[in-house]
């Protein structure tokens, strides 16, 4: 849904913190498919859904049975369901629109990560990666679990006994194993502690292929890009590796079966390796050779052009951005709090990071207005151009000073009804209704104002400048009232929440990084954008603007 006048060159990568969201202590985040809603799991067991457009809370999923910290949050493909895994070993499936809890399953161990099957709009299967055993497929309706193989035995044809006490190669079962679905949910890619990627068909629980990761270090994360074309692994040897997915998207299983048949002369491990080499090829490796940093929560950008990884060092909040060719393009530095989760917006160049203190920072581009925006005939040039003047440009009475003819044929048909397809979501199945927004129901004003409304009265007029708890006040000449010292506003809605007033120390720290400078054009000096400082509400925070 990119309007054609939004400069395409601006769609790169974020540069500064635009805002931070605050509500309780958030631990993990996930965008829905279109990036219009952001789900955040908190340390008190609640899951909050933020409306990313207004940066306000759209819904809260509270579970009285669960008070343990949430370890991961996952949306179903079209946004109707959310799966939440918590430290009390539970997996809870919620219906987003109604806010009802659908199922709750308790596992033997705390799942660190839980992912819904992306192949279905109402998935009942999910992939759970527990703290210290093999990843498993959980059927949310029946509660049954199926362990997945995490390594290939030296003999045998690839199936693994269902015991989960030890890995068959004898390594102690303490290292968490990373796993993820492929784009259509028919295959699972597991990264094990021996530094191998196993491609498993979860229906038959059979390993179909194996790809050894160079370095053989324990694989900590394994993630697909949004379009399913690239796979990322984060290993213990401090390297992020990008693989290209060679399998076709829709019929990965069929293709694997075909490969299996064609390589019939090989057996066992050799066969799996051969099949594996046809499924993934190593594309790039990223590492920081100077600081030899461990990476945390690496992922792709929405279009797969960029890769980000957070620094796993304590006490610093650094996000590295590489382009897919392997060049480091930017290091984003946030306030000195460890980073625990990271996500790139599916469509916009926006990155969201969660810090150890529970804040969610929103990183965006530093928006500068094009000079060409200020007048209809301004054009931006990339570099100096030779100007070739018209034949009669310097004549006293130029010939062409007559009526400027519009070069548009005014008799052409204009189509005001057909919509343009959005190419970023080309695979959306239009028969499925996608949940993009939760209905915004205005919360009623405090009752004292309501009884004044029966008859029109003049009392309302002078209350314009007195504190209204719910709307922002900005003086007419553009100065924004500095709310840092005014008393915290009470929330009139009642149903909302614990919004804390931020100590100004944090505010100052963030302000130091804010880069929203006033932009003035020569001609139209009054055309400026003002963002109103919103320090009352803990939810959103815009930096202070210098007034004119």
């Amino acid at each position, binding site marked *: *849904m990119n309007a054609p006048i939004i400069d395409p060159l601006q769609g790169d990568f974020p540069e500064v913190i635009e805002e931070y969201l605050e509500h309780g202590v958030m631990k993990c985040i996930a965008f829905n498919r279109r990036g219009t809603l952001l789900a955040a799991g908190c340390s008190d067991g609640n899951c909050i859904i933020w409306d990313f457009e207004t940066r306000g809370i759209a819904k809260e999923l509270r579970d009285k049975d669960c008070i343990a910290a949430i370890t991961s949050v996952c949306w179903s493909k079209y946004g109707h369901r959310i799966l939440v895994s918590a430290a009390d070993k539970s997996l809870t499936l919620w219906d987003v629109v109604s806010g009802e809890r659908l199922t709750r399953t308790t596992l033997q161990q705390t799942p660190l990560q839980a992912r819904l099957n992306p192949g279905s709009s109402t998935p009942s299967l999910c992939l759970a990666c527990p703290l210290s055993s093999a990843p498993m497929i959980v059927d949310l309706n029946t509660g049954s679990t199926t362990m997945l193989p995490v390594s290939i035995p030296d003999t045998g044809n690839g199936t693994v006994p269902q015991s989960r006490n030890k890995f068959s190669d004898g390594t102690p079962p303490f290292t968490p194993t990373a796993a993820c679905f492929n784009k259509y949910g028919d295959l699972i890619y597991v990264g094990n502690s021996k530094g191998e990627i196993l491609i498993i068909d979860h229906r038959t629980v059979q390993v179909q292929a194996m790809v050894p990761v160079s370095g053989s270090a324990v694989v900590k994360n394994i993630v697909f890009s949004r379009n399913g074309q690239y796979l990322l692994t984060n290993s213990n040897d401090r390297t992020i590796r990008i693989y290209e997915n060679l399998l076709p998207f829709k019929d990965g299983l069929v293709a694997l079966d075909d490969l299996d048949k064609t390589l019939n002369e090989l057996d066992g491990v050799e066969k799996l390796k051969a099949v594996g080499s046809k499924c993934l090829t190593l594309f790039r490796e990223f590492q920081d050779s100077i600081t030899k940093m461990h990476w945390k929560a690496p992922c792709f950008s929405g279009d797969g052009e960029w890769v980000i990884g957070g620094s796993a060092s304590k006490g610093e909040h650094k996000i590295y951005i590489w382009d897919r060719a392997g060049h480091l393009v930017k290091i984003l530095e946030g306030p000195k709090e460890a980073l625990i989760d990271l996500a790139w917006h599916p469509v916009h160049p926006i990155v969201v990071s969660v810090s150890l203190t529970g804040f969610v920072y929103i990183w965006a581009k530093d928006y500068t207005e094009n000079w060409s925006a200020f007048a209809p005939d301004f054009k931006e040039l990339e570099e100096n151009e030779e100007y070739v003047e018209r034949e009669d440009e310097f004549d006293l009475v130029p010939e062409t000073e007559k009526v400027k003819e519009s070069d548009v044929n*005014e008799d052409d048909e204009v189509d005001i009804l057909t919509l343009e397809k959005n190419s970023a979501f080309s695979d959306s199945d239009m028969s499925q209704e996608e949940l993009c927004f939760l209905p915004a129901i*205005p919360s009623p004003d405090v009752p004292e104002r309501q009884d004044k409304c029966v008859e029109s009265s003049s009392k309302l007029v002078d209350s314009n400048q007195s504190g209204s708890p719910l*709307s922002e006040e900005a003086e007419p000449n553009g100065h924004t009232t500095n709310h840092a010292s005014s008393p915290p506003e009470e929330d009139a809605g009642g149903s909302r929440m614990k919004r804390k007033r931020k100590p100004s120390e944090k505010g100052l720290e963030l302000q130091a990084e804010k880069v929203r400078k006033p932009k003035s054009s020569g001609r139209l000096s009054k055309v400026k954008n003002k963002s109103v400082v919103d320090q009352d509400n803990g939810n959103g925070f815009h930096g202070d603007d210098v007034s004119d």
Partner: protein
Amino acid sequence: MASGTPYKPYRHLKTLTAHTRAVSCVKFSNDGTLLASASLDKTVIVWSSQTLSLVHRLVGHSDGVSDLAWSSDSHYICSASDDRTLRIWDARAAATESAHVKTLRGHSDFVFCVNFSPQSNLIVSGSFDETIRIWEVKTGRCLHAIRAHTMPVTSVHFNRDGSLIVSASHDGTCKIWDSSTATLLKTLIDDKVPAVSFAKFSPNGKFILVATLNDTLKLWNYSTGKFLKIYAGHVNRVYCITSTFSVTNGKYIVSGSEDRCVYLWDLQQKTMVQKLEGHSDTVISVTCHPTENKIASAGLDGDRTVRIWAQDS
């Protein structure tokens, strides 16, 4: 027209008299069941589209109301008033007293125009204080206050996916803004004269219909920055008259006029196909029913009525 069917003229169906001062705006709800009208008599009246009878009279503003907008689910109405506030009303409220939900404060002068975003989680408003404000519907918080123009803002509208806002002003400019960052993306028109009195996106969000106070309506392609069609023949020199697209039975542009008539033009041919007479003062606002071939129009102080026009079936 490609279809070849002859044009069916609209006929006057009913006159609704309930306002005691000039009517400033009429709008059908998106589901077509209700019609709302705003007036300088400080009230907003909600009518049933079917029976054309009065359902609610929403009282509460302390000064005249200039504009109103429906939320996409047709549940809420937002009104913009000279008392510098906007009010959100629940259109389905059982009793008139409980209809008022929220008041949005922040503008420092008359609020002149208002619109909901298509997802209806945002409201955009334009005011005589030369600013555009974007409000969060749920809490009433003002998310952005944009110093947009150098004279009163006459019209604001979201595009189909809510990513852009078009604004028009007496300062002669028509500008397009990015709604999430509140930054200026494009200036469509930048002549000091004439004032731009109205601007609205087409249903597919690709074109903008712009009215200027020199008796002209133009349809612009905003990405190329060129206008494609001009519609003329009506009178528009003083008031910010709203116009709209009629798409239920062929494609037309409908507009009010200062010569007391409602004008209809064929969208492609630009020819005037009908002039609806009956009002006794300037027709300031027109609205088309989303599914039926019905038009509602509103007249200023010398008229004070809302008239309904329908095509013979």
